[in-house]
């Protein structure tokens, strides 16, 4: 198994009222090509910061991140911009992550235009295909985000991310805001997209129940550190760390 993403001793700090607060405190992990690594922990545990540091949306204080052997932290502006095509993100709240003033077409096109992947009619066709891939209609290009339900909006955000044909997707609580039926539908979509497009996922969630059945491996994060990282089945049947046990005990076990 070759690691697509390798994180070494990563530290992310934020300026706090007194000095600095460590959100990520020396994390190392590997994400293999094609797998879904779930990153689970309560809010404030540093999951989002870790995900953003991998994408270099926040600058880590120290440590290393490589993507397919490329040192992400060493990249200058243009090489980084080029690399962004290969790694994408879907945020938790599609209401906040879609510009309310733009049409769906323009939202999905944003990455296509930024990387000049297609122009004019080709770009239009591409957008329509993407919308179809995520279960929306081609006619939706002219509509605005507020005309859609939460689940549909998340599909738009997924289409936007897929538009640049990434290999790696950070799903930052991407289904957490959705109610359970819609969540199951979006998870099913993500699973099928992963199969057809050979995607690798970092699936960030605060809820272990969502992760079961979806993730290949699970990393449990607590106060900026990874306390346990194991194949999903092993972690659910035989958690080794106390915090994982506590988290599992707090999770209603619903068969997925």
């Amino acid at each position, binding site marked *: 198994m070759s690691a697509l993403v390798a994180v070494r001793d990563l530290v992310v700090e934020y300026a706090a009222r007194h000095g600095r607060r460590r959100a990520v405190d020396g994390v190392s992990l590997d994400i293999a090509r094609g797998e879904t690594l779930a990153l689970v922990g309560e809010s404030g545990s540093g999951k989002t910061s870790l995900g953003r540091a991998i*994408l270099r949306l926040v600058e880590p204080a120290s440590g290393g991140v490589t993507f397919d052997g490329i040192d992400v932290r060493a990249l200058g502006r243009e090489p980084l911009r080029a690399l962004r*095509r290969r790694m994408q993100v879907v945020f938790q709240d599609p209401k906040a992550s879609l*510009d309310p003033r733009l049409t769906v077409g323009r939202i999905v096109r944003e*990455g296509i235009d930024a990387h000049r992947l297609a122009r004019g009619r080709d770009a239009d066709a591409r957008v329509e295909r993407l919308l179809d891939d995520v279960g929306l209609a081609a006619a939706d290009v002219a509509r605005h985000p507020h005309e859609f339900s939460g689940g549909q909006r998340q599909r738009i955000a997924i289409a*936007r*991310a897929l538009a640049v044909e990434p290999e790696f997707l950070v799903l930052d609580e991407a289904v957490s805001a959705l109610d359970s039926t819609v969540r199951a539908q979006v998870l099913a979509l993500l699973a099928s997209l992963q199969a057809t497009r050979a995607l690798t996922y970092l699936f960030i969630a605060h809820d272990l129940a969502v992760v079961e059945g979806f993730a290949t491996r699970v990393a449990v994060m607590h106060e900026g550190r990874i306390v346990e990282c194991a194949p999903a089945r092993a972690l659910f049947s035989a958690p080794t760390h106390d915090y994982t046990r506590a988290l599992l005990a707090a999770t209603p076990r619903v068969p997925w």
Partner: protein
Amino acid sequence: MSAATRRIRALAREAFPDWPSRVAIAVLALVLLAVLFAPLLAPYDPNALADFVRDQFLAPSMHHPFGTDQAGRDVLSRVMHGGRVSLGVAALSVVVSVAVGALWGAVAGFAGGVFDATLMRVSDAVLAFPRILLLLLMTSLVRAPSAAGIALLLGITSWPGMSRLVRAEVRHLREQDYVLAARALGVPWWRTLRTHLLPGVAPQVSVAAALAFASVIPLEATLSFLGLGLHPPAASWGNILLDGADQAAAHWWLVLFPALAIVVTVVCVNTIGERLQDAIDPRRVAP
């Protein structure tokens, strides 16, 4: 751009539901038409030197609704023509203020850090001077400024306020997830500024521009009244007021009508601006 049109329509419906704002729009439209088409509509030549022994200081009547001044000129015609200068200068100054202020504020707010701090200290420094003092200082340096010159002076003394507003708004928008998503997509910063940030600040900027327009009309009048603005024969509402000031006790119409023109216009523009402000208030729930 049908989406934009629809948005503007919805905003207009939402913004002007009550009669004061509709009256304000109607009155302002009337003023603007009268001023804009003054050369066609004005009953007399505003600068005609008539038989001023006969025509001097005529009280308002059917022939001269606003009366005549010491040179026998029709005050209504003068006010209509003066509005072209007053409103033109005000509009141009707002354009200058918005152009400089929005660019300054957007760059500062978007860049952040030292760059932001430097830009904002400069605008603070300009803001720290009372505007009227700054204007007095600058007008004393420029002899007999043209209308465009006055507009430029008014504009460059008002952009700091605009830049602060735009900066605050850009900083707020910059933290939105969709801006972060654009960064994650590898969208260049200038494109993000153009697609997400500037359209986002446009409503606030239009409101601020309306309010700035309202505030600059009396300011220009003040300058002209102090003799520091435009020089005759070019006449803004402030110049007309100045002309009539020493005769005001005996001939009230010389100051009442130009003053009314200023007040009515300012009140209307302010009313409209405030309604727009309410309509775009971010605390209100988005549709």
